């Protein structure tokens, strides 16, 4: 299914560049999940997607819908705020759970309580 909204040239360029940029940044973050070696290194990798990746795609989405409906459409900001606030919570909880499990298992290179 190849289709696209009918946008003026400047908006098409902005939307295209930002969508591609956001998707690439998210892919780099996901590649980090594969390439990095230890769990604590891998936790850093998915933060690329929610921060800059999401921001780029939301900029593209805001531009697209604002031009299409010829009024400012900014409800995408809700997703930005929500993702920014929730990602640290999940990653922190996950890292703490891993730390707790490693301490229980007696892994050597984690800091003691």
């Amino acid at each position, binding site marked *: 299914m190849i289709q696209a909204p009918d946008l003026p040239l400047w908006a098409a360029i902005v939307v295209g560049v930002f969508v591609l940029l956001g998707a690439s940044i998210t892919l780099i973050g996901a590649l980090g999940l594969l*390439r990095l070696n230890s769990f604590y290194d891998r936790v850093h990798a998915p933060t690329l997607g929610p921060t800059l990746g999401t921001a780029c795609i939301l900029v593209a989405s805001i531009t697209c819908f604002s031009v299409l409906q010829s009024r400012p459409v900014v409800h995408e900001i809700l997703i930005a705020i929500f993702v920014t606030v929730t990602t640290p919570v999940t990653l922190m909880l996950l890292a703490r759970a891993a730390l707790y499990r490693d301490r229980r298992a007696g892994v050597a290179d984690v800091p003691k309580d």
Partner: protein
Amino acid sequence: MRRLLPYPMLSLALFGMWVLLTGFSPGHVVVGALVGVFGGLVMRRLSPEQPRIRFGWAMVKLTALVVADIVRSNIAVGRIILFGRSDRRSGFIQLPITLHSPYALAALVIILTATPGTLWLQHDARSNTILIHVLDLVDEDQWIELIKTRYETLLKEIFE
């Protein structure tokens, strides 16, 4: 006014969210206002500590700093992932901290974790230290100095 809106910031945020989600029409503005007031009243029952937030230049400066840091560290971490160096060392840092307000600490959690490359693990309220994990640990003291001068003073100005 105080009794109706015990948490004005929360009510305003709820109202803004409602209007953004439903589209701007007079009926939804009224419903959104009711939701905002009701949310504030529910929150009073839970009675969390009242935050003291100072709006001002410090907030603008912190936002600009955080956005710039997110972009910068995204590029840095992306480079590590794509062309990983063999001499890269990651590790944990114990960081002494002087912030006490839970809101300031929550803001610091979000800032540190949202910038790729640093991850918050835990906060010890007794010894006032936080434990963070850093992906590219070159110099431990340099990181401590960076976080202290970059974020801590601004957060103190806003929240304490």
